[in-house]
């Protein structure tokens, strides 16, 4: 246990040092990323104004709150991508990682967790800037704040696992980008990334219940920007935990089968 703790600390430190090497690049990346929610925010605020001040329960200030929290959650759920898996298998990186006495997935989790500290440090000024301009209507309670803190880290773990599962398909076939793209499109619509799920038709909202997407995106945003009851907060965290358990089991299973295949043909 102490060893893992030490490893995580060392790997996170590497991530922080590494990612701080290119602060300007990070900002370029972030500005590009923030354009997306700003577009949604502007469009939906315009719709809300036209509809007499609110749409689907969201005022312009409500949308501002939703999409500004969105930017933090989006940063939190950036994880090792399936394209990264493709690259690591093709380039033989995975082989080298397999020779270390530690599971490669620990490396992924630790590295990206470390990166979060860089990202959040750089995100704060942008968030202040966005808040000054768009005036979010955001009044979280202490409980919501605490729930949000846990929710974003749980979201990080959920997305790490779903995207690892997706990436591991590369063990079997290299023509994967089509699958990845379909996945990302489904995620966009069903997670609350495109619009708050409550603005979706009822059947889409029902459908979203069966996928992990919203628990890695929409739910953490709602803990802070929405008006969830205490039981909804706790229930949501419970759902996140459940998806993590499912994710761990599934990841382990797929990893075992995949690595068997991998070591039959070599990397």
């Amino acid at each position, binding site marked *: 246990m102490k060893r893992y703790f030490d490893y995580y600390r060392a790997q996170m430190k590497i991530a922080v040092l590494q990612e701080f090497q290119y602060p300007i690049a990070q900002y370029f990346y972030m500005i590009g990323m923030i*354009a997306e929610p700003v577009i949604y925010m*502007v469009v939906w605020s315009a*719709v809300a104004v036209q509809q007499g001040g609110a*749409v689907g329960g969201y005022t312009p200030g409500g949308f501002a709150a939703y999409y500004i929290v969105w930017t933090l959650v989006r940063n939190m759920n950036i994880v090792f991508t399936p394209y990264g898996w493709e690259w690591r298998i093709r380039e033989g990186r995975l082989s080298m990682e397999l020779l270390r006495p530690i599971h490669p997935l620990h490396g992924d989790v630790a590295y990206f967790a470390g990166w979060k500290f860089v990202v959040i440090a750089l995100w704060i000024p942008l968030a202040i800037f966005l808040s000054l301009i768009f005036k979010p209507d955001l009044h979280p309670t202490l409980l919501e704040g605490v729930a949000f803190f846990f929710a974003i880290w749980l979201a990080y773990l959920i997305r790490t696992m779903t995207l690892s599962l997706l990436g591991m398909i590369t063990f079997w076939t290299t023509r994967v980008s*089509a699958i990845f793209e*379909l996945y990302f499109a489904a995620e966009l619509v069903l997670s609350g990334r495109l619009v708050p799920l409550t603005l979706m038709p009822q059947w889409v909202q029902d459908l979203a219940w069966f996928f992990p997407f919203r628990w890695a995106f929409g739910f953490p945003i709602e803990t802070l920007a929405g008006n969830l009851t205490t039981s909804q907060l706790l229930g949501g965290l419970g759902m996140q935990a459940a998806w993590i358990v499912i994710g761990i089991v599934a990841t382990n299973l797929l990893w075992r089968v995949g690595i068997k295949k991998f070591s039959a043909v070599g990397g």
Partner: protein
Amino acid sequence: MNGLRLAWSYLRIGILNEFQYRANLYIQILQTFIALAVGLIGLQLVFDQTTQLGGWSRTELLAVMGVYILMGGVIRAAIQPNMERLMDDIRNGTLDFALTKPADAQLLVSVREFRLWQTVDVLTGAIVIGVALAQLGWSLSALSALGFLSALVMGAALTYCFWLMITTTAFWFIRVNDIANLFEGLYAAGRWPVDIYPLWLRTGLTFLVPVAFAVTIPASALTGRLTFLTWLGALGLTVLFLVVSRLFWRRGLKNYSGASA
């Protein structure tokens, strides 16, 4: 006209090359289809709640989306790949190969790459525009059509200038992917007409990143919004940017040969 011949031969090689990877065509079709579906869903969601947005009707916004997809295809087929290769060449010091050829260097680095399959987007965009026009009752005058086509060309030219300037001036402190990311993020704003954005953002999307010229202005021509004055302004700006980016390129080239000597 030596330059045109050169561009044509590069184009031919690019196309032949792409035919080697036919599977990519299917992936491209799927990606285009997904992007279109997501765009239509977004449009549907908005117009579930309202009947017009910033003075644009649903059909007019469909036309905007068509231009957005079409122009995106043009950028990813012809502009972006060349600029990314230029950036790689600058970084790896392999630009010398291009500079030692007996042709204008700027032209050469701008025509070396062509991604044929991205034209799926161009085609899809054109179809979407067609559908929107049909829904509008084909009320397009010859003058508007001319305005639309010329605005498209100017939009593409301005986008090219933007990429060239960023590439030649900024390559030493940012990575290739980051510029592509930034551009893609900001270009996505073109999905909607820029006049719905707050003033500061609209200004940025007009003069810093030419999204307004690439998408909104051609779409304005389609929907009868484009005034002659705006058109003239666009023309003036295009000429200005072509000259300025040329100067930037010259300047950057001087730096490059200085650095690699």
